């Protein structure tokens, strides 16, 4: 019960901070929409082309939107050494991690919704027929990506050149998630039978679980100087 209280206190604090300044969501959504918009101008794809391009395009937008999101999430903690302030409290650092991860999941989830909506408009593509599977794939891969990104965001928070280092550090680790996301999304959007891409979904789910457990256990060392 106390663990849940801690997780929701950290989550609530992050949501409240975002509500006050709206900086993370605004920047992440604008960036995602720009990526979708510019790709549309660059390729002017028809329906067949859109099907081929969209999964990769969406995951590029999600990946870089995530970088902005994780950087911003820890920029707020860096100010006045608030992350260290949390490390002073008698709580399991893993719970702080879960609270931060949930907040990032909400922010990136909202941004992904906006990006997908923008893509459906500009590419004149309906996600409705494959929405159930596409949403499941995106959710699982986003959980895995946020699990990695939150940890590396905290690691990079106290480094010089953190904006550059964060993608350099986290992309190689998150690569299996992106591959699983793109492969499974391609199958789902094409309308292939789920059995042809469930292995990718299982892989994404497995990676998400592994990253969450590892990050939960290792966050204590991340919080230390």
């Amino acid at each position, binding site marked *: 019960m*106390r663990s849940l*209280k*801690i997780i929701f*206190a950290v989550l609530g*604090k992050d949501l*409240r*901070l975002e509500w*006050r*300044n709206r900086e993370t969501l605004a920047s992440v959504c604008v960036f995602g929409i720009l990526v979708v918009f510019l790709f549309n101008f660059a390729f002017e794809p028809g329906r067949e082309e859109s099907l081929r391009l969209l999964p990769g395009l969406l995951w590029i937008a999600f990946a870089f939107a995530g970088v902005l999101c994780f950087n911003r999430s820890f920029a*707020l903690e860096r*100010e*006045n*050494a*608030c992350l*260290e*302030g*949390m*490390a*002073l*409290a*008698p*709580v*399991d650092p893993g719970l702080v991690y879960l609270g931060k991860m949930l907040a990032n999941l909400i922010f990136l989830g909202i941004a992904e919704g906006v990006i997908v909506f923008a893509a459906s408009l500009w590419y004149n593509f309906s996600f409705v027929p494959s929405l159930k599977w596409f949403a499941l794939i995106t959710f699982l891969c986003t959980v895995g990506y946020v699990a990695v990104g939150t940890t590396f965001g905290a690691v990079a928070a106290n480094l010089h050149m953190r904006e550059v280092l964060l993608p350099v550090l986290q992309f190689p680790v998150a690569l299996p998630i992106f591959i699983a996301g793109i492969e499974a999304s391609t199958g789902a959007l094409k309308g292939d039978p789920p059995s042809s891409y469930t292995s990718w979904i299982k892989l994404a789910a497995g990676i998400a679980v592994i990253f969450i457990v590892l990050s939960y256990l290792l966050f204590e060392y991340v919080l*230390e*100087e």
Partner: protein
Amino acid sequence: MPSDTPPPVRVSLELRNVSKYYGDLAALVGAQLRVGPGDAILLYGPNGAGKTTLLRLLATVARPSEGEVLFHGKNVRQHAAAAKAAIGFVSHSTFLYGDLTVRENLEFSGTLFGLPEAEKQIAAALEFFALQDRAHTPVRKLSRGLQQRVSLARALLHEPKFLVLDEPFTGLDAATVATLETLMRQLPDQGRTVVFSTHDFARGAALARRLVRLEAGRIRYDGPVEGRSQDSGVRGPDYTKALILNPES
């Protein structure tokens, strides 16, 4: 090495042969310090002597490169929750969220520390530091001195047994300094411990019962504060005078 044998105390928080390195820089070397109930310890020394490093090690936010930090005789790493619940730390950073109000910051801290009567304790802290009128003001809009008051309120909220203060008087007005001084005198009488650093030797010596003098990362003196002068190794007025008369010295 300590020049005097420290008085025997019931050990509660202890640095045992602790060194801390930042790359090649030795911030603290072979520190031995025993802190017990009722202690009021002034850490004194020139800039870069290792005061902040020592305080951060006591507050458990820094991990020693060598040696051990012990809480009630056990490694603080193995009893982190109990140690952290017993320690309040005020640092150069305020640990406050600028976009949250004073009350919201204290409520968040109260939740993390699992305070049983958070509302009551927050109200008491706000009253003690005369922050009631600012309770709903975002911390970002407060002056440095007011932020320092909130930081002190946050550190004292869970009524810690050990209060670790790094330059606590920075930015405070005279009234708040007086309040803090009164508190720092009262806490040791209640069996609590105050470990603090300040560059104002006279003020620190008036509050402390024990002096720990640091120089170049080493503890040079650990003993009673009575009768000790500002023999900190800091170059004093004579040096300043010589420097003015002969700038190349």
